[in-house]
């Protein structure tokens, strides 16, 4: 209530003093489906500025939101002062230091990720030096199966960090050098309390790092390094690009080693908070895809223990087109094995280290080969055709070495994906769009016990069939600048055994398409977008959307399916 009175007072005073500029935007969405994926989410951003001062407020009325916790009231606010030399920020702060290796504060509503801090930032800048000091507290929610009350939509565990850091940047001709120092206090509640245990973990981390950016003629390179002094962890990231006429060569390298966690504990950051900190959102060093099916099998980067590289070659063609080749490969630094301890109980231990990305399954390898050709044909037809071959060892369940045998089991995902995008311009304002995707996916558990005579490797599929074949067809028409309509069909031949058990609620489009696409394994919808005014867009979706992994900028989370319902959205600036 006090916050609202304060904002109201601020707004009234601003209006009365006239010289103040106001603007804002609204994002509102409403959804209702037959599998109870219902939401009503509204956010209003208000920006105000007066001379060198600005104020930003974000209010939210979400009950429930599409993803995340219910919020009714003021969500974010920040006051800023900016002159030629000095800047000051107070409130909800979002900054990035060291290419994300120190911290990368994001507020991504599409996947409900918020790593911002509440605090203050002071900075001074001239032509040669930039100094910054930051103090703030971060309260971030995350969804995890390692804490009670896990829900696909509502995060169930909160991390608490207090950050105290300084940054100095120097601009020396073609070189930019940054130095960072960050002290972090982490006080988390333990999800499950054992008798005679403290209810919280308290950990201190001291991070320092450097960044060097170098730009000279056709070469552009940057290197970033961070080390956690108290935990003996470190991260390196290097990127380099060479540009030669119509050709460009890029190399990116990552080497993140903040904690040694067994395959069993690998994703349990809640009970193993010693490693990478939640706000260290570092580069993935993999290609970011916009394809629906490639997004669903995005490799999950293990920031505690992963090294890898990515090579890209791009050649520009005539008609604004290009040919792109990318190869990405990564793995863990460590191979783990199961050993018998003194009490004759199997436990995990490190067997081997590698200093280069390995392709052996014991190191959780990931590799991806990507080709793309795009351009315009006779200035009317835009095409983008790509092909991806990927392999990812996602989990290792056991690895027992005996004198002459090896018993193991691990999960791998192999996929070949062909996404095609076509746009044909009928005339200056009308166009037809098509998006076609085809994917062959093999996912399951490989196991072997070579102690058994004549044993061969077994494969148990995650699906009811050995190979999953996914087909996505989207056909649309758009009339610039007013409206567009599209029909989207997502079909498969088999679904994950756990998902198949859930009952489908087909809509009339799926029933209509049933002779061609099996309605129990097809999700289809119609999407209409209206640009009412230049800065007001309405959207309406009717139908179903298949559940799966949703990724945004390389960060992913699982989103449940939306069955036979409708979504309505307004986006406007005022």
């Amino acid at each position, binding site marked *: 209530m006090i916050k609202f009175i304060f904002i109201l007072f601020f707004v009234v005073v601003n209006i009365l003093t006239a010289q103040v*500029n106001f603007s804002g935007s609204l994002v509102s969405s409403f959804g209702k489906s037959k599998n109870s994926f219902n939401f009503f989410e509204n956010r209003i951003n208000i920006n105000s500025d007066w001379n060198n001062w600005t104020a930003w407020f974000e209010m939210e009325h979400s009950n429930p939101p599409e993803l995340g916790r219910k919020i009714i009231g003021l969500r974010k606010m920040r006051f800023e002062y900016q002159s030629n030399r000095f800047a000051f920020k107070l409130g909800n702060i979002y900054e990035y230091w060291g290419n994300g290796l120190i911290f990368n504060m994001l507020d991504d509503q599409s996947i409900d990720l918020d790593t911002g801090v509440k605090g203050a930032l002071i900075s001074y800048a001239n032509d040669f030096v930039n100094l910054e000091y930051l103090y703030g507290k971060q309260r971030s929610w995350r969804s995890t199966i390692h804490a009670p009350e896990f829900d696909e939509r509502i995060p169930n565990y909160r991390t608490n960090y207090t950050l105290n850091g300084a940054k100095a940047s120097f601009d020396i001709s073609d070189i930019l050098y940054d130095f960072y120092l960050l002290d972090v206090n982490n006080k988390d509640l333990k999800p499950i309390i054992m008798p005679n245990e403290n209810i919280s973990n308290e950990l201190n981390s001291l991070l320092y790092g450097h960044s060097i950016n170098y730009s000279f003629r056709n070469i552009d390179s940057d290197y970033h390094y961070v080390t956690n002094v108290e935990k003996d962890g470190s991260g390196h990231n290097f990127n380099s690009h060479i540009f030669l006429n119509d050709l460009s060569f890029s190399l990116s390298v990552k080497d993140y080693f903040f904690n040694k966690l067994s395959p069993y504990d690998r994703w349990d950051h809640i009970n193993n908070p010693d490693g990478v900190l939640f706000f260290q959102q570092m*580069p993935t060093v993999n290609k*970011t895809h*916009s394809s629906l099916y490639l997004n669903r099998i995005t490799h999950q980067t293990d920031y505690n223990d992963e090294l890898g590289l990515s090579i890209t070659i791009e050649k*520009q063609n005539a008609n604004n087109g290009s040919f792109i080749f990318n190869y990405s490969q990564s793995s863990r630094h460590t191979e783990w094995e199961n050993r018998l301890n003194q009490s004759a109980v199997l436990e995990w231990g490190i067997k081997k280290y590698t200093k280069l990305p390995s392709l052996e399954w014991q190191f959780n390898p990931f590799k991806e080969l990507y080709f793309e050709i795009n351009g315009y044909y006779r200035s009317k037809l835009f095409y983008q055709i790509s092909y991806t071959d990927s392999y990812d060892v996602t989990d290792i369940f056991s690895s027992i070495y005996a004198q002459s045998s090896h018993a193991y089991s691990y999960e791998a995902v192999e996929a070949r994906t062909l996404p095609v995008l076509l746009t044909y311009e009928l005339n200056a*304002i009308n166009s037809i769009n098509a998006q076609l995707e085809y994917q062959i996916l093999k996912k399951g558990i490989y196991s072997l016990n070579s102690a058994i005579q004549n044993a061969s490797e077994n494969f148990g599929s995650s699906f009811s069939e050995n190979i999953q074949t996914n087909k996505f067809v989207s056909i649309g028409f758009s009339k610039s600048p007013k409206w567009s309509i599209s029909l989207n069909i997502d079909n498969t031949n088999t679904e994950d055994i756990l998902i198949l058990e859930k009952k489908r609620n087909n809509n009339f489009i799926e029933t209509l398409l049933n002779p061609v696409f099996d309605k129990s394994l097809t999700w289809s919808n119609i999407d209409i*977008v209206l640009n009412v*005014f230049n800065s007001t867009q309405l959207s309406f979706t009717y139908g179903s959307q298949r559940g799966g992994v949703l990724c945004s900028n*390389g960060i992913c989370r699982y989103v449940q399916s939306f069955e036979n319902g409708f979504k309505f959205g307004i*986006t406007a600036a005022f």
Partner: protein
Amino acid sequence: MYKYLFLALIAISSESYSQKVQTSLRLNRIDGKKIQLKKYLDSGPILINFWATWCGPCKKEMIHLDRFSRQFKKNDFSILSISIDTHRSLSEVKRYVRSKKYDFEVFIDPNQQIFKRLNGNIMPTNLLIDKNGQVVWMHYGYMPGDEVVMEQEIARLLKK
């Protein structure tokens, strides 16, 4: 019900959109340098374009932005293209824009602070701003043909 009516009213009010941009706003150029918006506005009107490497329509639109940048440069008109890719994919931004040899300058906004400050919500978002910092035209999204309207708006502003 009343809440939704209120939201609809705000949406309709966007027809009379009249934002003024703070000229002391500091942008991060892709080479790491920080530059104030004032530097560009002192020369003439600007178009701010928000995009990302994962946004297909944005890339299609950039071909036209490059054409406008070359075409209207003589009128002291600048295009500032701001990528909202996070640092996870920032390396791809550098590669993409330098390979394409675009005429306009490219900036980064990985935490979407400038994007939110200028009321961006949908990719791409475009704002046409006059010399005084007044937003004269704003547009959400891109579909083939939108560049015709954009060109008309730029030409209209430059005639003033």
